[in-house]
């Protein structure tokens, strides 16, 4: 029994985490018994009712969720692959990176959310304007990581591969690309989150479907409970996406040392 209350054991840790959640929910519930407060903060039971209706009784969220998730996934892949490609190219070509350097810095420091209305004009109000916005967020994260990764490949590794007879293409495939991949993975958790942010912000700024659109509609009618329900759903799916990326990372990066890892046989 005493084991349950020690945060050091994994069971105890879960217990304390759940307890914290329960405390937050109870405080939320008690405070919002007052209707004036409830107007601003919603009520946990109402929020849960909304989520229940979306998923079980009315089943009207799946279309919106599908739209948001496909925007996220598309932006994630397009941004990652283009960032990887351009990062490799500029990392390997000194001339190109010298010429493009100021433009890349400028593009990265630009507040890119401002581009959302322009993308709306270019790509319409469908999913592609949201994909474009999210791509601009994902691209730079991956690009800078790959660029850095290519620049910092150990010279000994390169020399060794060259002495073993690797040509230019083989160096790219067997040394630069795997080295860059490890840097890409370290950025993927950030970029999947940003892909999601890009998609939702894009929807929020102008669309006819998606979870961001649902939240915008609810805000228009001061329906705080629906807003909170939307936030909860978005958070849950962001966590799921992050978990999937983590699984992929585990599979592909099994060669990477983990701290404190004992010998595996």
């Amino acid at each position, binding site marked *: 029994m005493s084991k349950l209350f020690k945060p050091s054991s994994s069971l105890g840790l879960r217990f304390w985490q759940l307890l914290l959640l329960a405390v937050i929910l109870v405080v939320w519930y008690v405070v919002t018994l007052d209707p004036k407060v409830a107007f601003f903060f919603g009520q946990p039971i109402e929020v849960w009712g909304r989520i229940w209706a979306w998923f079980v009784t009315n089943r009207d969220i799946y279309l919106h969720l599908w739209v948001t998730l496909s925007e996220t996934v598309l932006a994630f892949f397009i941004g990652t692959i283009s960032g990887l490609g351009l990062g490799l190219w500029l990392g390997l070509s000194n001339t190109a990176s010298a010429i493009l350097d100021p433009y890349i810095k400028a593009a990265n420091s630009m507040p890119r959310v401002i581009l959302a209305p322009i993308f709306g004009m270019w790509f319409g109000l469908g999913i592609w304007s949201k994909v474009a916005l999210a791509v601009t967020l994902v691209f730079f994260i991956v690009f800078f990581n790959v660029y850095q990764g290519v620049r910092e490949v150990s010279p000994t*590794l390169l020399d060794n591969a060259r*002495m073993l*007879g690797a040509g230019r293409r083989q160096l790219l495939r*067997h040394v630069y690309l795997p080295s860059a991949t490890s840097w890409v993975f370290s950025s993927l958790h950030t970029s999947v989150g940003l892909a999601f942010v890009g998609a939702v912000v894009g929807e929020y700024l102008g669309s006819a479907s998606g979870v961001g659109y649902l939240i915008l509609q609810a805000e228009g009618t001061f329906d705080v409970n629906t807003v909170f329900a939307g936030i909860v759903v978005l958070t849950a799916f962001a966590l799921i996406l992050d978990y999937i990326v983590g699984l992929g990372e585990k599979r592909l990066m099994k*060669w990477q040392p983990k701290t404190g890892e004992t010998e595996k046989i």
Partner: protein
Amino acid sequence: MADAALSLDNITCTFVSRDGGGKRYTAVKDTTLAIAPGEFVSVVGPTGCGKSTLLNVGAGLLQPSSGQVKVFGQPLKGINTRAGYMFQGEALLPWRSALENVIAGLEFAGVDRAESLERGRDWMRRVGLSGFEERYPHQMSGGMRKRAMLAQTLIRDPDIILMDEPFSALDIQTRQLMENEVLDLWMAKRKAVLFITHDLDEAIAMSDRVVVLSAGPGTHPIGEFAIDLPRPRDVAEVRADPRFVELHAAIWGVLREEVLKGYAQQKRA
């Protein structure tokens, strides 16, 4: 006389510092060195004297400022494809398992996969790594990584083997084991070896010839000693040989002063 396996003629390497100012540093000056086919030559010298520079020139990784490199009589252009190079630092690809690392050279050369794997397993066994084929470099000890690097270098069957202080990071026991293994492998194949070390004992125990380099800058050979100890040798036992002690004293007499010079320079810098 047959062509030397590797000959460095009047090599000078001057580095210009990148941050402008035109600072120059001549690491190696007017160095001539020839290694006959099948000969084991060690180069010793104080730390920071440009031993690795010389090796990189021989490998074709570094262009000398002046002088010429010849490989079996042919002037060297680009990478020296007949040489295998065992680096001082970590050179295994961390994303490949030990076996995949060992066969990397064969893969680059387009050797059939099944044949590469078979030869790779054979070499893993020869360097005493059987059963560790699927380990990644970070899961192996320093000595095991060195063995894998040795197999990786030798599997291509190079005619010239360049080694840059390959065992300097190992503890003394592992080191002697590896030295003996390298000698056995070398005795079986008799390739030309250029072995860089700062350890005089190691140099004498393993080589046919020891070349002493001066302290930098402007490193050049200042002494050459033929090692007439009988083979096969055991690196641990040979140290007790009276001839070994004699040679050691003679070479150390030349090297000592350079080591002190090199040390004084590093202290000033």
